[in-house]
């Protein structure tokens, strides 16, 4: 009986489907999306590369003078992330001492080109 009642109530009301892409779902703040790097903050400590479970981060040449905790450091390397190997676990964000590498709120797409990198 409860099935029949609910069926007819549903027939007379709107469906609950969200018609993406015309309507969009609000993305929560904690969402783990696409990886991004802020170059000014990175001190080249390589921690992100060491903790990445998918080994998606390699350190490439990138000398720069960076401010950290009031001191000026001469960094030698900076990270480069293979976008489609990243599993978006967030360990790099968790272990980065300066907050230079983080996961954005936007969707990380998927693809087959293994060479696309985020720097």
């Amino acid at each position: 009986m409860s099935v029949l009642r609910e069926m007819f109530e549903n027939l007379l009301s709107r469906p609950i489907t969200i018609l993406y892409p015309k309507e969009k779902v609000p993305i929560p703040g904690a969402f783990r999306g696409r990886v991004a790097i802020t170059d000014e903050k990175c001190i080249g400590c390589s921690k992100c590369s060491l903790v990445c479970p998918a080994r998606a981060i390699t350190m490439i040449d990138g000398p720069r003078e960076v401010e950290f905790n009031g001191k000026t450091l001469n960094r030698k390397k900076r990270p480069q992330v293979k976008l489609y190997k990243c599993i978006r676990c967030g360990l790099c964000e968790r272990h980065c001492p300066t907050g230079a590498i983080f996961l954005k709120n936007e969707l990380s797409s998927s693809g087959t080109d293994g060479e696309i990198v985020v720097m």
Partner: protein
Amino acid sequence: MPEVVVSIGPHHPALKEPVNFKVVVDGEKIVRLELDLSYNHRGVEKAAEQRDFIRVLPLMERVCGICSHSHSTAFAKGIEELMQLEIPPRAQYIRTIIAELERMHSHLLWLGVAAHVIGFNTLFMWTWRDREAVQDTVEEMSGNRVHYGMNEVGGVRRDLTPAQVTAALERLPNLEERIKKYVDMVSSEETMLIRFRGVGKLSKEEALKYGTVGPTARASGVDYDTRKDDPYLAYADVPWNVVTDTNGDVYGRTRVRIGELWESLKIVRYCLENLPEGSIRVTAPRNAPTGEILSRYEAPRGELAHFIRTNGTDKVERVDIRTPTLANWTSVAICLVNQNLADLPVIVAAIDPCLSCTSRITLLDKQAKKTGVMSLDELIWRNRSRDQEQVRP
């Protein structure tokens, strides 16, 4: 009709994951069942031996999509016990909240799948619609709908803000109402009753003899729940009950799972309202001392056991995962005999099978280029000692 072998799988519309059932049928009655479970083997246990404790937790999470938090927590819990770490109570509560939310989403998913298997697609659509509320809550808290990534050795990674707690508490009353409707529906909807009642009956002695765990065993009256018998996380503080049933058939398992949905909702509400203050993690040492530990956890499908052996380095030496689905397959082979072929998907779906969890063993024959499984006799023969005379089976 003479006996016919119907080969169901590895590709079949009824199966979500590859498994091979060779069902020997006489007309519409099942005579015997032969299983081949090794299709989803990915070498997780070996891969875990090469990753240190920070990098291994995302790997353990990805053993299964539906019970990912179970594997990650069981492993983290075991390592913390070996390292003799005391994790703060706020972390325990957050882990419990995510664990019970995972149990809720898993049971709602199961209810939909069980309805779909008997062709009752309406209930499938409705339960998965309600499951979205749980998924939204988990996405707000952890950032993803599956593979939550909340655990690390020493505590949890993220904290719950007061806004997230309020939003989660607001979603619970609607879910409560829907669960009440499902309790009603299951006990009064005619087609569900005649398909579920009396199908796949498992007595209490058989359940105990064949090592059945989880809701499958609790539906046969076995009062065993790892959360009560070997308490971990915050379960000792929260008031809750173990749900058992005496029917022993698929209907009993449905009632147990819906009862567990109810209890999980109560646990989530209690933990959200009584979240203790404090830090969410302690710093863990890099290496674990030498030792062995068996870490048990009540996953949505039953008792999950991780056996971990460490040797003083920053990686495990051996991890062995015994999932609840692996323990329940024997009960399927037992209660399928003399049932109708049309009941095969119902009985298989009633143990809530998760093949990604189960496939831990496969045999590779490099010369013949074949894969397969091993019988118990062959396993015993391979482990014989030098002075035992045995013939190769």
